[in-house]
Each structure stands twice: as structure tokens, then as C-alpha cells.
């Protein structure tokens, strides 16, 4: 196997800490806390996690839109952390990002031609003359690639719908023919009927240009639909990572199982029986639980889990999980059966309990 396109080792990004005039001194929050991740050439890696998991920070830190505190980022053999100024800018044309909110990501005072053409102008040293007719032709062909008419270039962002704005954002990201794209929740702000169009466009562009994606989303079904590999993040760490099909067929971390149990297929017969698999409250990243960070929400946590943090290790071929009890899950334990009336097939914990807990004695 050739070297991966992107290799991240021990990446840490910390916010706050150290104290200040209004901030109490302390350890701060490690939003990304020792992440290892690789992305191969032309590969789509899906990154899922709930809010506060650090998935967006991870994506931005890889691009150095946010400066990492520790760890290494190697892109095509280049040490990304060692780069400065001009060299970093040169690398940026190979690594681009598509943002969640296309409205906020586009400067409202720039016409589409400038928005899409701006990267070409900035990187004129590599792309040659980017003015006048030549620039216009390049912008037109980029707009065509994302399914927009040529004359869109003379209009303003506010004249477009959300889906069209996201197409403009994608055209801008594509302008420099990047090899790697971070897609940060690219469809979650869009109307449902438009989401599928944008997902199809991104998959189509990836096939046509052989780009690699880090596709960040909270929607497991979406990530499962388009990814080659899936990484699941929880409170700053990757807790499971593996080939998409294997991970979907047999999640090896209780958290991933809970996420799957929370994303039922759109079928009332199944959906109506589904109950909340684990307590909904995510601990504050500022007060991390001891041992395994997931243990307070885990239905099969043991004493060991409360004290000893599990390492992310290979449980079966190319499929890694950070759980002391992954072997039991690999052997077929299902923690959250679809039918709420039956009990889980394994685990001493209170799996399958109802956590809503309102007492019926209220007025």
C-alpha cells in the first residue's frame, strides 16, 4: 500500500486554559485530544460525532485554519506544521474546505465571478494569468461543473437559494483543483429536498477528479451512504474507525451502536418502537470523566472502564475501536435491540432502560 495522502498523528488542539482577566485558570478544553487519522488518495473518510465531539475543530486544525498545539500533520510527505507564510499558502491550494453554512461563507459584497475566481487570482503564480477573458472562462467552466449557468457569475450571493449558494461554495473550493477537501457538514443547513442533490454532486466530483474527502457530519446514515471509511469521534478522541461496510454491519464501540440505534430507517413500524439508547447528556469537555470518556453513558461499563482509558486498537482487520469490551461486540452482542420489549443480549448494565424518567405523579 502506498503512503496515504494525509497522515495525522497525536493531534491536539486546546482552547482556553492558563487563566486570564475574566477566565479562571485551568487546564482548558482539549477539543481534539490525541487524534490519529489517515486519508488515502481518492478516499472518502466520513467523520461522525455529536456536537462538542471536536469533529469540526479536527477538520480545521488539519488545514491549519486553527493552529494545532501538538502532533503531526503530514500531507503527501510534507510536514504541514513546519510550513509558514508562502509555503503554507502554496499547500492550501491542494487542501480546501466546503463550509456548513453557504450563506455565511460567501462574502455578500462580491459577485459570483469574484468569489469563484478569487482563489485563481491569489494563486496566479501557479495558475498563470487570471484576468479578463481567461478568468471568465475558468469561472464559467467551474460553474458548469457544479451545475450552475454561466451567467450566474454576474449575480450576487443573495440572489441564490441555499442549495445554489452551496454549489458556489463548492465551485470556489474546486477552483485550484485540490487533492483533498474537508467537507464540514456541507448539507445540514440545506432544505431536505436539496440535500440529495448536493450529496450527489460531491460524490460525482470526487469520482471525476479522484479527490480525497474528509466528510464531517452528525448524520450517520449520510456518512454511511458515501464513505469508504468511517471514523467516530467522541469528546475529542476517535473511538472507532473502520471500513464503512464493516463498521455499519458490526459496530465495535457501544457509542457507535448507540448512534446507529438512534438513526432508524424512515419506517414508522420500526421508528415508533425505538427508545433513547443512552442518556442524552454529553459530559462537558471541561470536566472529562475518568477512564473511558464514554463510561457514564455506556450500558456495559465495568469498573475497569471507570479507571483505565481504552486505547484505540485494531480489533479485527482494519477495524479499530477504543473499548475494553469490543471483542464481545465483535462476537455479536447487540446492546440496543430494535424491539424495546426484548432485553439486550449482553451486558450487565442497564441497557435498554428508559431514561426519560418522568414520574407519573405530577399534576
Amino acid at each position, binding site marked *: 500500500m502506498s503512503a496515504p495522502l494525509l497522515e495525522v498523528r497525536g493531534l491536539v488542539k486546546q482552547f482556553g486554559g492558563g487563566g486570564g482577566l475574566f477566565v479562571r485558570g485551568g487546564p482548558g478544553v482539549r477539543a481534539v485530544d490525541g487524534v490519529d487519522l489517515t486519508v488515502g488518495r481518492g478516499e472518502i473518510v466520513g467523520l461522525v460525532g*455529536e*456536537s462538542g465531539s471536536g469533529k469540526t475543530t479536527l477538520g480545521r486544525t488539519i488545514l491549519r485554519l486553527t493552529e494545532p498545539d501538538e502532533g503531526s500533520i503530514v500531507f503527501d510527505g510534507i510536514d504541514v506544521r513546519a510550513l509558514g507564510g508562502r509555503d503554507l499558502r502554496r499547500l492550501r491550494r491542494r487542501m480546501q474546505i466546503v463550509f456548513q453554512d453557504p450563506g455565511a461563507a460567501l462574502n455578500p459584497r462580491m459577485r459570483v465571478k469574484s468569489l469563484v475566481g478569487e482563489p485563481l487570482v491569489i494563486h496566479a503564480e501557479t495558475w498563470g494569468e487570471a484576468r479578463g477573458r481567461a478568468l471568465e472562462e475558468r469561472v464559467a467552466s467551474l460553474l458548469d461543473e457544479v451545475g450552475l449557468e454561466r451567467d450566474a457569475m454576474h449575480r450576487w450571493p443573495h440572489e441564490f*437559494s*441555499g*442549495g*445554489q449558494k452551496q454549489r458556489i461554495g463548492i465551485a470556489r473550493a474546486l477552483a485550484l483543483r485540490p487533492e483533498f477537501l474537508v467537507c464540514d457538514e456541507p448539507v*445540514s443547513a440545506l*432544505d*431536505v*429536498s*436539496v*440535500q*440529495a*442533490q448536493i*450529496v*450527489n454532486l460531491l*460524490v*460525482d466530483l470526487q469520482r471525476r477528479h479522484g479527490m480525497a474527502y474528509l466528510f464531517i457530519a*452528525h*448524520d*450517520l*446514515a*449520510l456518512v*454511511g*451512504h*458515501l464513505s469508504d471509511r468511517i471514523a467516530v469521534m467522541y469528546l475529542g478522541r476517535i473511538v472507532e474507525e473502520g471500513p464503512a461496510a464493516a463498521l*455499519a454491519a458490526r459496530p465495535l464501540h457501544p457509542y457507535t451502536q*448507540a*448512534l*446507529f440505534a*438512534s*438513526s*432508524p*430507517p*424512515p*419506517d*414508522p*413500524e*420500526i*421508528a*415508533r418502537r*425505538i*427508545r*433513547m*439508547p*443512552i*442518556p*442524552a*447528556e*454529553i459530559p462537558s469537555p471541561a470536566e472529562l470523566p475518568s477512564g473511558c470518556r464514554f463510561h457514564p453513558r455506556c450500558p456495559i461499563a465495568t469498573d475497569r472502564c471507570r479507571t483505565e482509558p481504552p486505547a484505540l486498537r485494531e480489533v479485527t482487520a482494519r477495524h479499530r475501536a477504543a473499548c475494553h469490551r469490543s471483542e464481545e461486540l465483535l462476537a455479536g452482542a447487540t446492546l440496543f435491540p430494535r424491539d424495546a420489549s426484548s432485553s439486550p443480549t449482553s451486558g450487565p448494565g442497564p441497557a435498554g432502560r*428508559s*431514561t*426519560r*424518567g*418522568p*414520574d*407519573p405523579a*405530577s*399534576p
Partner: protein
Amino acid sequence: MFAAMRGVLLSVEDLGVEFPRNGGAVRAASEVSFAVATGETVALVGESGCGKSATALALFRLVPPPGRVVSGRVVFEGTDLLPLRDEEIRRFRGAGLAWVPQEPGAALNPVLTIGSQIVDVIRAHRDVPRREAWAEAVDLLRRVGIPDPERRAREYPHQFSGGMKQRALIAMALSAHPKLLVADEPTTAVDPTLRLGILDLLRALRDERGLSILLITHDMGAVAAIADRVLVMYAGRIVEEAGVQALFDHPRHPYTRGLLASVPRIDIGRGDLPSIPGSVPDLAHLPPGCAFHPRCPLAELECRSAVPRLAADPTGRRVACVVAQREGAAP
């Protein structure tokens, strides 16, 4: 059909809502008619600009001016709310119909404790001593699944996570003992595990209290999980109405079919997702005829000129599509 069995709590007839724009008027809701029975959960489904929020606001007579209700009746337990005087409608807001807003952050007062905000709502509706109202507030917080409610009631909104704020708002909505809860996108922008928690809570309230729920959402998973009946809105009109199972098994309007088909599923591999072409129309520039026709794979000549009637079949299903009506009730 549920309405006939259990008694109609709310009935909306021919509701029209308009907003003036650029000298003209934009119809946010047109000829909207539906009913909610006691104990029933009805989902009002649609995308941005479909008119679902305008419809919901009209139920409370809270359409923000210069927007206004231009036609119709909103009958709650036999009383039409639209012609009532302000002081009269206050008796219905909260105690009859209660609103759970979408943005928990914006809906809570940042300088008052959660408990005292609930106490204020309780005392606005019923003449109970403060101490008693406080006990009731704590009890409500416990009911909606907030741990350690005695302590939490004395905390401020910023000390609550997003999910807990959402629960606190549901507790607040329940404090006046409403019969109908109107929940505006309660699962939007909410993490998957929490999303199920909120749906669990709504289900429990329905089962234990016989509460009616009008769920305004574009989350088809949430609809599948708790709705009894579904109304699909597009460009200001109801285009389909059906029981939840029937709608998911055999959607009839091409828009509903497209919506359901485009939801990504993990059990179906990569490959193009079925998608609806184009985008949601601007209400100020609606296409003539059926507003969906420019995006519709089945559109015929007639669809470009005549607005299709929302016609009921013998089973009580309604669909506003001439092609679907011709296909008949059989799927």
C-alpha cells in the same frame, strides 16, 4: 377519521396568511384545512418557506405584522380564536394551546433562573402561591427528565446545555396544563441521541396525559417515530394528508415521494440518491398551476395552469395532484 373517533380538539378551516412585499402580497398559507383530535399527534411537514410556521403562528394569532390572517377559522374546542379580543385569546394561549419554540437559547430569559421563569408562567395562568408554583416547576422539570431538578431550577439558562434548555421549554409549555402542544422543529439541529430523548418525552406526554401534539418539522425520522397522521405542505398549501404508515408505505404526491426517497439510508450503498431537481420556489414568484410542477417528473400540461384540488379519497387520505388522483386510492 381519528377526529371522528376521539373528538376534534382543533380544527383549522380555509386558513390564509399573507405578508405584504414590494407593494404586493405574498401568500404564506393558502386554503389550509386540517383537524387535530384529542390525544392525537399530527405532523406538519415541509421545507423552508412552505408555510408551516405561518400556519402555526396563526393558531396563536401571533403572525408578526404586517403579516396577517386573511381568511379562515381556527376553532379550538368549539371557539373560533381569530375574531377574539386580545384579552380573550390569552385564556387560550398556554392553557389551551402551548408553543414550544425552536430556538431554546433565544426563548429563555438569560437573567432569570429557569425555575422562576416557569413559576411566572404558572402564576400568569392560575392563582397559586409562589411557593406552591415553585414546587410545581421543580416537578415539571423532573417530569421532562432534568436530573436533580431542585438544584437545576435555581440555575440560569447559560448553565443548561442545549438539550436541557429544550426540555425546560417543554416543561414551561406544560406548566399551564395545555391540551395541545405545538412543537416547532424540536429535533432540528439536535444530536441523534438527544433527538430520540425529546421524541421519547413527547411520546410519554401524549400517552400519560392524552396531550395532543402538532409537530412542525422537516425531520421525516421524527415524523415516523411519533406522528399518527401527517400533513405535507409545499409552497403554502397542504399537498398531501395521510396516516403515518400509509404515507411512508405509499406516498402519493410526487413531492412526498421525492422527499422520502431522498433520505440517505445506511443500509443502501453508495450511488446516486434519488433527488428532487431544482429548489423550493420563492413564495413571491410561484409558478402558475401546481407550484411543484417545474420540479415534478410526472407533470402534465394541465399541471401548468390549474392549481390541483386537495381531494379526499374514501379512506380519508387527501392529495393535491391530478396524476395521483387519477391513479386512484390503490397504490
